[in-house]
């Protein structure tokens, strides 16, 4: 790198650092989500929470939500026909910790053709209350089939139940074929 490039890179690193600080991000990752990654991130977050004497209930909720979010990416991030496509099973994964809550955010590329179905599933979950979610979970467990990749269609319902909040999701259009799907789950530190 010449001098100008070095300076640009250093500024990028420092800006990135500041940006993480500003958003209280404790963990960020971009890449393929494997089982090993899932284990590493959950155990890292677990030991951090234990060190900070987070309550057992909060620790368990964060653990549950992290596992389901990571598995969503590994099972659903799109591959567009070609198996070695850049985005298959990949995405961004972030955990942030504020004074009152944790946020677990995932982002991954999906085909536009799948947006309608995904929105329908998420919106359906979002109108249900505690009892409704419980019934839906039971029905899905009984009647749902495990997909080839081991998805049971239960992850989103579980996240809604564990957090007690609506699933906060957005689609950011990339091009005619694809969009970026972002889901943020919030776990209160005080409940």
């Amino acid at each position, binding site marked *: 790198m010449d001098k100008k490039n070095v300076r640009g890179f250093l500024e990028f690193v420092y800006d990135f650092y500041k940006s993480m600080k500003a958003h209280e991000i404790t963990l960020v990752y971009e890449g393929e989500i494997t089982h090993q990654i899932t284990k590493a991130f959950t155990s890292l977050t677990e030991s951090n929470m234990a060190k900070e004497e987070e309550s057992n209930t909060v620790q*368990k909720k964060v653990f*549950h939500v992290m596992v389901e979010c990571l598995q969503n990416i590994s099972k659903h991030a799109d591959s567009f026909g070609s198996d070695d496509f850049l985005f298959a099973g990949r995405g961004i994964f972030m955990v942030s910790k504020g004074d009152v809550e944790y946020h677990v955010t995932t982002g991954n590329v999906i085909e536009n053709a799948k947006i309608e179905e995904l929105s329908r599933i998420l919106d359906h979950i979002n109108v249900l209350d505690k009892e409704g979610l419980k019934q839906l979970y*039971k029905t899905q467990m009984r009647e749902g089939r495990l997909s080839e990749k*081991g*998805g*049971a269609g239960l992850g989103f*319902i579980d996240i809604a139940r564990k957090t007690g909040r609506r699933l906060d999701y957005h689609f950011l259009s990339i091009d005619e074929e694809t969009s970026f799907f972002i889901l943020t789950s919030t776990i209160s530190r005080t409940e």
Partner: protein
Amino acid sequence: MNTIKIMGTDDTPTVILDSENEIFEISGRSLPEDVTAFYEPIIRWLEEYSSSPNAKTIFTFKLVYFNTASSKLLLDILMKLEQMHEDGKDMLIRWYYPEDDEDMQEAGEEYADIVDVPFEQVSYTLN
């Protein structure tokens, strides 16, 4: 019949299926990389066991965590036990949960609602 003994890890549960010594237990954490592959031998073992089960079967679940994919397979196991119960066999499920873990307690209640088999909830203290 043969015995299944799987030592638990940080992502797979301990599984003991030993008809001779009357131990039937799944305990620990369950988030295997491939849930179907992990639980398949267990389901197969239960299918074989159901052809000539013991006079009484007490099946213990003592899990501290399981992911949603595992929850589906746990139901498959419970449904095998339900089938034996329907065939007139003496079955009992003991669902252990840490005393401060409402979610694990509720998970037990939900399974008890779904399957028709004698179901006991037991709380215990984690040390």
